């Protein structure tokens, strides 16, 4: 791999306000060549604004940016690119119907006059991909690729521009563990080749595994700046929140009721991801975690209970009574199952609906007589759910599309809790939400368990699984291969090992 001598990037007293609201307040730090810097903070702490300033998408009110020791002006994305700064946003920007090679060369296709040369383009893309040590189907259309591969293409695009600074905004939020691990190792390689990397993430485990320097923003101010090896996650969390993290209490351990609210027996599925005679129980007031790598079958169990996958055979019992395994989302709801899907934007929420309407979406019929919704009952339900979940919004009539990720997730969960389900099935309950909201969501689940609702949590975040579950089942190749009780900090590595990762 080619080693390029890069100059570092220094941020000097950056301040930015929107109206009277200061979103960044005199932020200064340096990004050194060959170093991965983790940028942490809650949603709204100013991380994205900082990234946007570096990418040239917005400009600071005061303060300056230096590359080496030269002042640079980053007024437009084009200027940023010219200075060797690449920004890979959370939602990728690419041209879906062009090939991988065309996307890599986007905006600078080799050409003669008005004519581009597909051969030259392919040669260029090929040499870049090999030089960087990747493997990509160069002639495939971009939209036929997996999300992880698309991200890799964006990274190749950034690196082939000889970027001095690469900014990644929550790149692993939508990746599974394998893909995340791959991406993290790629970032390690990029740093080795001499680039500075600014890594924005909510995942503390990842941040601590790859970052050498850490910067923490809170309410627009830099509250911590230092070496990753000289601090620990607990300290960082206290900086992010401005207070110590509250530990969850009241885990039941062995004192769980023996009454099963959900029982599945001999669930099997031929198609990939397959299931092979899976049986499990969730008791009243118990939180059961399912953990496995992508394709292990854990998510198939959740999706089947939610009525998304109709081809699983086997027996299902709710409150000890046999029911047909859900064949549709409607069916699932009627059986007494609440299902919180993994992707709140695509599958969970209707962005144009108000908070009030979203919270009654699944119980409209219960609130209605002759098809006419009782407005008072609806308002009471919405106010109650908003209070229970400590929802923060301007008003109950605000549309959910305008809320922050954490508050959207609260609305999504509350809309399912409003069903008063016998068992709540949750997929990735805190994906992409900040640390503060995560703690609140975890508390909410615990409170719900205390009131007797059994829960099945499928998560790819092992830290979360260990933190909130009473019992953890490990899935591997369509089977439950191991069960953990009495979860503690050592369970994490044992569970990872059992699942076949790392």
């Amino acid at each position, binding site marked *: 791999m080619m080693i390029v001598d890069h100059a570092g990037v220094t941020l000097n007293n950056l301040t930015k306000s*929107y*109206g009277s*609201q200061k*979103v960044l307040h005199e932020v200064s730090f340096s990004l050194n060549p060959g170093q991965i810097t983790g940028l942490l903070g*809650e*949603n*709204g*702490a*100013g991380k994205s*604004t900082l990234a946007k300033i570096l990418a040239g998408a917005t400009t600071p009110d005061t303060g300056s940016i230096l590359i080496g020791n030269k002042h640079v002006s980053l007024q437009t994305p084009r200027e940023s690119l010219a200075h060797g700064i690449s920004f890979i946003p959370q939602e990728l920007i690419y041209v879906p119907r062009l090939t991988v090679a065309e996307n890599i060369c986007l905006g600078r296709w080799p050409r003669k006059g008005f004519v581009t040369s597909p051969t030259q383009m392919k040669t260029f893309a090929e040499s870049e991909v090999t030089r960087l040590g990747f493997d990509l189907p160069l002639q495939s259309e971009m939209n036929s690729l997996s999300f992880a591969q698309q991200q890799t293409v964006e990274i190749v695009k950034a690196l082939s521009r000889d970027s001095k600074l690469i900014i990644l905004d929550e790149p692993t939020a939508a990746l599974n563990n394998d893909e995340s691990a791959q991406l993290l190792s790629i970032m390690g390689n990029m740093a080795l080749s001499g680039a500075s990397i600014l890594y924005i993430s909510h995942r503390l485990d990842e941040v601590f595994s790859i970052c050498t320097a850490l910067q923490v923003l809170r*309410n*627009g101010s830099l509250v911590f700046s230092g070496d990753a090896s000289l601090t620990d996650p607990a300290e960082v969390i206290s900086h992010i929140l*401005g*207070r110590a993290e509250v530990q969850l209490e009241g885990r039941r351990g062995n004192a769980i009721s023996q009454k099963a609210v959900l029982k599945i027996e001999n669930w099997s599925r031929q198609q990939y991801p397959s299931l092979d005679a899976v049986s499990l129980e969730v008791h009243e007031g118990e939180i059961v975690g399912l953990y496995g790598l992508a394709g292990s079958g854990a998510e198939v169990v959740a999706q089947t209970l*939610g009525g*998304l996958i109709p081809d699983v055979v086997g027996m299902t019992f709710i409150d000890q009574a046999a029911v047909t395994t859900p064949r*549709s*989302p*409607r069916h*699932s*709801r*009627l059986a007494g199952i609440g*299902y919180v*899907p993994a992707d709140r934007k*695509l*599958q*969970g*929420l*209707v*962005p*144009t*609906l108000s908070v009030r*309407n979203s919270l*009654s*979406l*699944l119980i*409209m019929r219960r609130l*209605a007589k002759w*098809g*006419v*919704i009782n*407005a008072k009952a609806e308002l009471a339900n919405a*106010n109650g759910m*908003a*209070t229970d979940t*400590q*929802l*923060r919004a*301007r*008003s*109950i*009539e605000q549309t959910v599309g*305008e809320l*922050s990720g*954490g*508050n959207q997730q609260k609305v999504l969960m509350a*809309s399912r809790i409003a069903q008063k389900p016998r068992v709540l099935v949750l997929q990735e309950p805190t994906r992409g939400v*900040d640390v*503060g*909201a995560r703690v609140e969501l975890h508390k909410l689940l615990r409170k719900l368990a205390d009131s007797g609702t059994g829960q099945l949590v499928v998560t790819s975040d092992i830290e979360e699984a260990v933190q909130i579950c009473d019992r953890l089942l490990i899935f591997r190749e369509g089977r439950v291969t191991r069960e953990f009780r009495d979860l503690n900090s050592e369970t994490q590595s044992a569970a990872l090992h059992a699942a076949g990762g790392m």
Partner: protein
Amino acid sequence: MDESTAISRFSKGNSPFRKVVLSEATIRFIILGIFLVVLSLIFSSRNANFTSGNNLANILGNASVIGIVSLGQLLVIISGGFDLSVSGTVPLGGVVFAIILNKGWSVPAALLAAVAIAGIFGLANGILVGFVKISPLIATLGTWYISAGFALTLSDGVQIPFDDRADGILSARTVFGVNNQIWIFLGISLVVTFLLRFTVFGRSLYALGGNREAARLAGIPVSAMTVSVYVISAFMGGLAGAILASQLLTGSGTAGINSALQSIAAVVLGGAALTGGVGFVAGTLVGVIILGALSNGMSMLGIPAFFQTMATGIVLLLAVILSQFRKRGSFRKSEQVSSSKSQPQHPTN
């Protein structure tokens, strides 16, 4: 704390923090209302007859036909689709109405026949879009051609005058000297308003248009809902066609062939989004009336029809551009809000 007050405070009736937040729809409605007033002032300053009771009834009477079509179109657009085939079902409804009347049947029977035959095309649209998953553009383009061709075939390309002049009842003036079609239009407006605001059906429709997959996962029968809105839209088309025929005292295969684009223009002007999930009756009403007033006023001033068409386009674009500016403004506002949102120190209950 300022804007980011926890909702829980509202529930306790403690609302000093509550700001009057006008919804996007309300603001759009106000802008359109002002526009309508300005437009009326301009026209009446040039020709005092513009605001005479007789002329206002005229504007409303003419707008009623396209208004009824627009109410159906509104439902389809909220659900995330749109319906081009009304350009076929309106003339078809008129032709069927005339033919059946001339066979000596009663007005209600003829009306029922017109609505039912149009409804068949709505059912086809619904099945094509909701179950076969063809895009609304292609599906309703196809049924537009079929229904428009069918109307021309039935009428043999010529106009079918009513044998009995009393059959113009749908547009006659009865109650308070106001045309019946206006009463019908206002009545349907009320029903659709109620449907959208207070019923499970309306709520499901907004959910379906806002995010189809989320609506499906919430247990809403999305395909059946899709069929129902296209059927309603076709019913409205058939009804509007019958009224138009009643107004003209003749059924014609070419009357109302611009219904699709006119109704889509009115609905969009009234604040609905073609991406679905957004739209309301009051906005559509004002949209319809603005378009009606525009063509009426320009005719009174003797402006040629070609210019009227251009003016309609300009008004539509202006309204949509205006709402874009507003969106950008509110985006900025919400950015501020989110940045002040998660201050951990603030008391949450």
